């Protein structure tokens, strides 16, 4: 265990201590204890920047289950470090914010911080581990922690609904991802991402390539709220705002992005990967931005905005993966890496501005008591600091200069335009559609940013809309959004601060093997790049967006605007209730509670199974060679036997049925006599006698009221099943006799015949077998009889006296 290992799991260790800190240090807000950890980790991870920016990687391994190739390997390169810094950095700010957001008097802080730390540790595990199984374990822990945090106010119905939904969707994806990982293991024989990338040829040539890719992408898409799995994210907004800011904008939803980026070297370069990522990304982008416009709740707008921005990043990763197609034609390949650059850059930008926006939304909620944009308005002068931060965040999200969102949006357009020049993957045909869709989505992004801004901060302040006295938030609550807002401005004004420290190493991790020795990606982000297509597209976005916003009075009357909930929820809700009613339906058919139905199932199953097996292996065989002449005496007995058996179903009186059963028993004894089995015949006679006595006793004890002679109901299905079972057993018996003769096995009977006298000193071979050769069987049968007798005694003598509970 190295320091890096300890750093990864340190949140879990602290989480163990939290309940004690909460209990024994009540006067101090528990958050202060928590705050130290992400801060220390942030500083710790910052120290690795020089290592990764020089292209170095750090790898330590601790065996966990070495026999299965599962090792806790921490691996730090540009991409992991970027995520680790996001998690610890934004983690610090979120914890600080939560200290002021959650009251120590009314909230269960121990739960909150345990869950939050659990989540943080799991997230570190996801981004730092090199082993796919370890990654999966941490991945599911993030799902679990996320659900716990969403249902933090578990007494609210909406919270538990949201938690269940996010759990079901992300765990569904997680499990299919596990399937994908297993397929990768099947292909390469290792769980280590490094080694899989090293033996990527095995993957690309395998027939399992596509299934593995689809399964893993399912995991990434559900986690990162991609279309159509995005529906859990808006419902996750029931969580406390610090949680939304941390999990549902900056970190957890980017786990899928991380996974896609991490596995780009494995799957990238194929047309499927390119198209799936691009199409899903662009669909999510458009769907999210158009849905966000319809929302009335600040956090819902932000949720759909997050969905849309994640779609953007996903789309960019897809576009960037095209460069891997060109492989070592470095010149061509590098031309298309702009998309990857934009993805990484936007990843950072989105974390900064979306974090700050969630925090300001939380402040507005906290200080006014509502998040509904129809009630809010005129907060500009009352909450000036919140207003300023929101303005910066929204402008950046809308893609306005001089903030960082503008830069990443320009690069998004650049990436798209360059990708449309690709001559592979049918791009010449479909590329233009991508550009149009992206542009439309940008327009809507601009619109919802304007809606959010103008509805909240401008207009007339109406004090009657609020239950509380509205005022600016305390300074402690404002620190975190101020820091994030400043980062938005700093990264906007000096984007190249990040260029070779974070972005270039991350790109090198996403697109390895593309660079020659000592070569680096050229990262140069600047605001002014002349009058080119991208600039005109942005101008168009602003103009059309403003136009749409100004016409809001008109279109906001349209029916679709009023439909707040995502229409895809219909499918989720209906499939969930359909699942329940469907399984109830099946259960009602199958579990009738009637023994006769279960018996029918068993018989039918037996018929099908045996019948199919005999058919499948062509096992029908009838052998007449060994059939010797049948004695007329046997004919008589057999006919009587069959006749009395056939009579039984038609007997209407129980007592007659008992007698006929006795007759069958005596006929059976007679058969034994004919077949020269005196012991069996004797036993059969005596047992039959005793059984009939017992039957009569049981008949005598039938309850008075229901003592009715009944006619067995005739049922054609039962008749058919009975005939089928009988026929099948007959056929099996005949076939096995015939096949047995064919196989010509030597019977063990010879041995008993020869050795009965010499070895056991008895001439009655049956008895010798019973007591000597196979005495254990007899011993246990006698035991069975004893148990049956005790059972009868217990059933009859130890009757319950009514009120006793079982």
């Amino acid at each position: 265990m190295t320091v890096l290992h300890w750093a990864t799991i340190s949140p879990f260790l602290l989480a163990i201590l939290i309940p004690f800190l909460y209990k024994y240090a009540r006067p101090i807000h528990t958050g202060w204890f928590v705050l130290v950890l992400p801060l220390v980790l942030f500083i710790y991870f910052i120290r690795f920047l020089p290592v990764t920016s020089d292209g170095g990687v750090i790898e330590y391994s601790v065996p966990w289950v070495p026999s299965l190739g599962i090792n806790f390997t921490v691996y730090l390169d540009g991409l992991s470090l970027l995520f680790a810094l996001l998690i610890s950095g934004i983690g610090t700010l979120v914890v600080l914010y939560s200290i002021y957001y959650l009251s120590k008097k009314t909230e269960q802080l121990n739960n909150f911080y345990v869950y939050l730390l659990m989540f943080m540790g799991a997230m570190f595990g996801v981004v730092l581990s090199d082993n796919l199984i370890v990654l999966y374990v941490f991945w599911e822990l993030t799902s679990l922690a996320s659900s716990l945090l969403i249902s933090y106010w578990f007494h609210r119905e909406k919270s538990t609904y949201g938690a269940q939904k996010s759990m079901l969707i992300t765990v569904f994806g997680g499990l299919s991802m596990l399937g994908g990982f297993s397929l990768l293991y099947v292909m390469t024989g290792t769980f280590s991402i490094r080694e899989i990338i090293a033996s990527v040829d095995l993957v690309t040539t395998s027939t399992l390539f596509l299934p593995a890719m689809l399964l893993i992408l399912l995991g990434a898409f559900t986690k990162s709220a991609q279309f159509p799995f995005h529906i859990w994210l808006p419902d996750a907004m029931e969580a406390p705002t610090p949680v939304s800011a941390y999990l549902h904008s900056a970190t957890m939803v980017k786990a899928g992005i991380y996974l896609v980026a991490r596995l780009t070297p494995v799957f990238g370069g194929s047309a499927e990967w390119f198209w799936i990522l691009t199409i899903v990304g662009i669909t999510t982008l458009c769907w999210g931005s158009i849905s966000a416009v319809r929302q009335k709740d600040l956090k819902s707008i932000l949720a759909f905005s997050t969905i849309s921005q994640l779609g953007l990043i996903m789309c960019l990763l897809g576009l960037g993966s095209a460069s891997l197609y060109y492989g070592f034609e470095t010149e061509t390949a590098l031309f298309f890496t702009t998309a990857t650059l934009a993805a990484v850059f936007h990843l950072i930008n989105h974390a900064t501005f979306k974090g700050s926006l969630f925090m300001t939304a939380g402040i507005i909620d906290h200080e006014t008591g509502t998040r509904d944009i129809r009630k809010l308005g005129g907060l500009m002068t009352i909450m000036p600091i919140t207003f300023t931060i929101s303005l910066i965040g929204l402008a950046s999200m809308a893609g306005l200069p001089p903030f960082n969102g503008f830069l990443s949006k320009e690069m998004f357009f650049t990436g798209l335009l360059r990708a449309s020049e690709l001559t592979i993957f049918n791009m010449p045909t479909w590329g233009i559609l991508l550009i149009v869709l992206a542009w439309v989505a940008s327009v809507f992004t601009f619109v919802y940013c304007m809606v959010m801004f103008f509805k909240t901060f401008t207009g007339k302040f109406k004090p009657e809309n609020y239950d509380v006295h509205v005022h600016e938030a305390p300074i402690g609550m404002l620190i975190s959004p101020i820091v994030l807002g400043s980062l938005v401005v700093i990264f906007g004004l000096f984007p190249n601060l990040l260029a070779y420290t974070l972005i270039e190493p991350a790109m090198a991790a996403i697109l390895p093997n593309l660079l020659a020795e000592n070569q680096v990606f050229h990262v140069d982000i600047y605001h002014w790049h002349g009058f080119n297509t991208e600039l005109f597209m942005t101008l168009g976005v602003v103009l059309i967006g403003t136009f749409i916003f100004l016409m809001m009075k008109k279109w906001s009357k349209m029916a679709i605007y009023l439909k707040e909930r995502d229409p895809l929820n219909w499918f989720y809700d209906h499939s969930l209730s359909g699942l329940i009613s469907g399984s109830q339906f099946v259960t009602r058919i199958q579990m009738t509670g009637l023994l006769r139905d279960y018996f029918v199932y068993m018989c039918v199953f037996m018929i099908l199974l045996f019948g199919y097996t005999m058919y499948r292996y062509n096992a029908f065989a009838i052998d007449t060679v060994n059939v010797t002449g049948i004695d007329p005496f046997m004919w008589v007995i057999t006919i009587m036997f069959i006749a009395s058996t056939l009579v039984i179903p038609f007997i209407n009186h129980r007592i007659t049925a008992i007698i006929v059963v006795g007759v069958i028993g005596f006929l059976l004894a007679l058969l034994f006599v004919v077949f020269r089995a005196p012991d069996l015949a004797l036993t059969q006679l005596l047992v039959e006698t005793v059984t009939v006595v017992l039957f009569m006793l049981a008949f005598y004890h039938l309850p008075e009221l229901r003592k009715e002679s009944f006619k067995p109901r005739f049922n054609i299905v039962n008749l058919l099943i009975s005939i089928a079972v009988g026929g099948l057993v007959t056929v099996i018996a005949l076939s096995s006799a015939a096949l047995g003769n064919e196989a010509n096995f030597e019977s063990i009977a010879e041995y008993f015949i020869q050795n009965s006298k010499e070895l056991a000193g008895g001439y009655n071979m049956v008895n010798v077998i019973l007591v000597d050769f196979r005495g254990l069987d007899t011993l246990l049968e006698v035991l069975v009889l004893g148990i049956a007798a005790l059972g009868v005694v217990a059933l009859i003598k130890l009757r319950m006296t009514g009120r006793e509970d079982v």
Partner: protein
Amino acid sequence: MKKQIKSNDVMLHTLTRVVTFIILAFSVYLFFAGHNNPGGGFIGGLMTASALLLMYLGFDVKSMKKALPFNYTSMIAIGLLIAIATGVSSMLFGYPFLTQFFEYYQLPILGETELTTALPFDLGVYLVVVGIALTIILTIAEDDA
């Protein structure tokens, strides 16, 4: 309320007295003959049980209890113990469980006789069978709930 007239089953009683001994003797014969002729512990036990059942039918349960003060439930346990003990005893001499032995002895009166450990084993079986048959039938018959 009618007074129940107690019937006097002279024929049944007399016949039972005679027949029972014959059946019992036959059952003992079956039991001992088992090793070389049809019969054995199971059949002998069932035969004894039917003899006893006949006595229960002929006479009432109360006087039967006086005449045959057996506890049939413990008879099952004793039978099982005997059967297991014969099995275990072979282990004491280092043979596998339930190894049976036999030897011919010259006994007074009987002449050359074969003695085998299968016999106590069969005795266990015999006791269990008698015990269970009577336990079950008497328990059900006595039940008046």
